[in-house]
């Protein structure tokens, strides 16, 4: 039996084309992940010591 996908708000349903009877239904979910890049921390084992000018 051919099905038609219908969407209303966050609900979806697959209904039989001929009878309109709901065969499957569910809630639409979407997951998003956004990021800020934390650049490689450039590490040194000791600080550069600036010598005072004489």
């Amino acid at each position: 039996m051919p099905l038609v996908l219908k969407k209303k708000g966050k609900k979806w349903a697959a209904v039989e084309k001929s009878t309109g009877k709901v065969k499957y239904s569910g809630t639409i979910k979407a997951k998003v992940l956004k990021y800020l890049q934390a650049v490689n921390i450039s590490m040194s084992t000791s600080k550069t010591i600036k010598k005072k000018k004489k």
Partner: protein
Amino acid sequence: MSITPFKPTGIGANAAMNVFKVTFSEALSTNPKLMAWDDYTCTTVDNTIIAGTSGSSNKSMIGGIGCTVAPSAGWFPTNETAGSAVNTSSLLNGNTGFCLLSSSAPTAGQAVYFNVNYKLYSDLVPSDTMSSVLAVQFQYTGATPIEGWYANSGTEGTPVWTELKADVEGSAPISGNTQIRACDTGEGYGGTETYKATIPSSGSSFTEEIWLRDTP
């Protein structure tokens, strides 16, 4: 819109909740998460900064906290908690250690707040992989939310929110989007701009400064 590099007010182990802010234009279906991953694929946690060293008990060196109130000064988590409640910190390590950013799914227009910090250990070596991404994951079931990312360039009491540009999972960082640089005092913008950090000679220490700037 580009940003002039700045250190978000209160970032790190300070009693500050107005550090980072993320807003959602539509309701979410779950509580958003603050997470850390190796890179933009948001799939692995192998870099030393997340996998840790013996000195860090093989735990992440990135601390995070979702805030509705300011945490105590000196805050930094000791453990990785999968879903640490808002106002409770966790070391950030993929799906093993992450923070919830509110007590329930935010409604349309609601903002969430968080703070982060980085701790370096004396057994690190300069060649260790210390890159990561700081990610916010959110879910929705209705209209697609437009989220805004901000960091505070004002004061804790009177925040001034500077808009940031976040990248999208699965896509490499785009030039002009915001990046995080942790370093020693004087190594950031206005200083040497080499963004270098010194490995502590013993024990552990927080990075002295954390900057935000545009990705070159």
